[in-house]
């Protein structure tokens, strides 16, 4: 009797249930279990406790990867939010050819990370790229050797990523700005408050949900950055632009060091959860409860 009720729905949801359990939950358990072993080329269950994690935190390359992801995360997030908000405000000024500008700012988002990386690799090429153009124009002091500079290469990655992602933030923010009541603008102008002040102190707090959504969506993408860096710098020069995702993939597929890869991937997973859990809690639990009251 129990199984017969809603039988159609139960059968229909079977793939979802199986995938959720085997892939989403199963893979995490699998990765965690094997991160406690010293598996090399093939996964073998040879328990070594948290040795892999200890080794991970002692590895210089992992330190560099973590440092890079912090730099990238901060620069990319702030860059996208600031430029995205600025563009949204500009577009919101009842300008001419608005849809043309919107199209221009958003098109990079349609490109793949690989394409983005390769294009910027060419533009920033120290021999033939922008630097060369500036030299030809007579600015011989101009230097733009970021891609071959160990300390600056990660910022080149940030520029490419902001170029790709800022338009998306603009769209989200613009939706927020267009939702602001016209009366608020009227009263602000009656009060004689300058426009830039109104935007920063009144409007920005009012579109907070959009800001938070953008922030979370961008931050969630930070940990995963892989293709972009692979195409732009291949992790170099040296390993100066390597990231946790690259570290994991390298240990899986080219260094045959499965235990390390599993341990690193579990750390990645934990950090994503730490970023997203507060937001998910707010979005799905808190909001739902608010809606019911």
């Amino acid at each position, binding site marked *: 009797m129990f199984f017969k009720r809603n039988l159609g729905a139960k059968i*229909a949801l079977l793939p979802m*249930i199986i995938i*959720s359990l085997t892939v989403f939950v199963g893979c995490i358990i699998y990765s965690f279990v094997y991160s406690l072993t010293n598996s090399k080329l093939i996964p073998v269950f040879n328990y070594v406790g948290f040795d892999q994690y200890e080794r991970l935190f002692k590895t210089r390359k992992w330190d560099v990867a973590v440092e890079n992801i912090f730099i990238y995360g901060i620069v990319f997030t702030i860059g996208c939010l600031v430029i995205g908000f600025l563009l949204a405000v500009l577009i919101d000024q009842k300008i001419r050819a608005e849809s043309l500008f919107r199209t221009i700012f*958003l098109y990079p988002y349609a490109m793949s990370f690989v394409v983005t990386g390769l294009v910027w690799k*060419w533009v920033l090429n120290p021999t*033939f790229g922008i630097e060369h153009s500036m030299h030809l124009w007579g600015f011989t002091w101009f230097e733009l050797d970021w891609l071959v500079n160990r300390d600056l290469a990660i910022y080149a990655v940030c520029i490419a990523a902001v*170029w790709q992602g800022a338009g998306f933030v603009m769209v989200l923010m613009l939706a927020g700005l267009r939702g602001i009541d*016209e009366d608020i603008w009227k009263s602000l102008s009656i009060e004689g408050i300058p426009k830039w002040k109104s935007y920063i102190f009144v409007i920005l707090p009012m579109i907070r949900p959009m800001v938070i959504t953008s922030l979370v969506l961008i931050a969630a993408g930070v940990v995963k950055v892989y*293709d972009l860096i692979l195409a732009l710098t291949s992790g170099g020069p040296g390993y100066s632009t390597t990231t946790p995702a690259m570290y994991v993939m390298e240990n899986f597929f080219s260094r045959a060091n499965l235990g390390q890869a599993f341990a690193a991937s579990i750390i990645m997973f934990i950090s994503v959860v730490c970023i997203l859990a507060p937001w998910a809690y707010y979005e799905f639990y808190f909001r739902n409860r608010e809606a019911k009251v």
Partner: protein
Amino acid sequence: MISNTIEARGPRPKHLSIGRIGMYCFIVMCALFFLMPLYVMLVTSFKDMDEIRSGNLLYIPKSLSFYAWPKAWGEACTGFVCEGLKPGLVNSLKITIPSVIVSVSLGAINGYALAFWRFKGAYFFFGLCLFGAFIPYQVMVYPLLKIESALGIYSSLPGIILVHTIFGMPILTLIFRNFYASLPIDLFKAARIDGGNFLKIFFYVIIPMSTPITIVAVILQVTGIWNDFLLGLIFAGRDNQPMTVQLNNIVQVDYGVAEYNVDMAATILTSMIPLAVYFVSGRWFVRGIAAGAIKG
């Protein structure tokens, strides 16, 4: 939630003040910065190598050279094979079309079952499924590879289609469920009273009403799957490598003289489809990416 209220209200200011001229200058500068890489790609692909070496990156070509395009399309080398991007395009189509059909259908059925046929525990699994959207791919690729090997479909077309279906499922299920939950429940009740069962109601009542959300889902999946690199690299196998992987192989080739014009032509060819989707679909694209931003 995006784009409903996106139109500007009220008339434009009549007079151009100094401030507004400054603003226009600034926004045009920003637009030029955003357009610059696309422009550089285009002009570079029409230059010959001599001009690339001696000339200015930002100038239009002195003489149009059509050397790069046919080479990128049919002759450029990836490793030892010199067939250009053509096989990559075919592979990407072979991967994208079935993956989009399978994943969108699965998302629609899941969303429908969750919105109208709730049973005990269904939402627990829905929660698990959504949770899957936030797990980094790196945690799942290796175990998934093992699962696919056990099923005998690793490194094959069905293998990569299954992977795209799995990773597309959370977000597609979510957007279809939200869309169906916003439909009037009376409609469903009426169909029930008329004797409709699970499948009948889905095919005769729900599917005809699903056009808008299906467009969003298809755009989301087409651009997402076309632009994917990592999953194609690992799961598609040597014979089915998608365009993005082949592009990377062509450009990052270790030996021989780098031909930047061929590289740029190849880059444009690879981004053709998503750009076309973007320019044609416009506002739908915005809804699609906004819905899909939390994906893997």
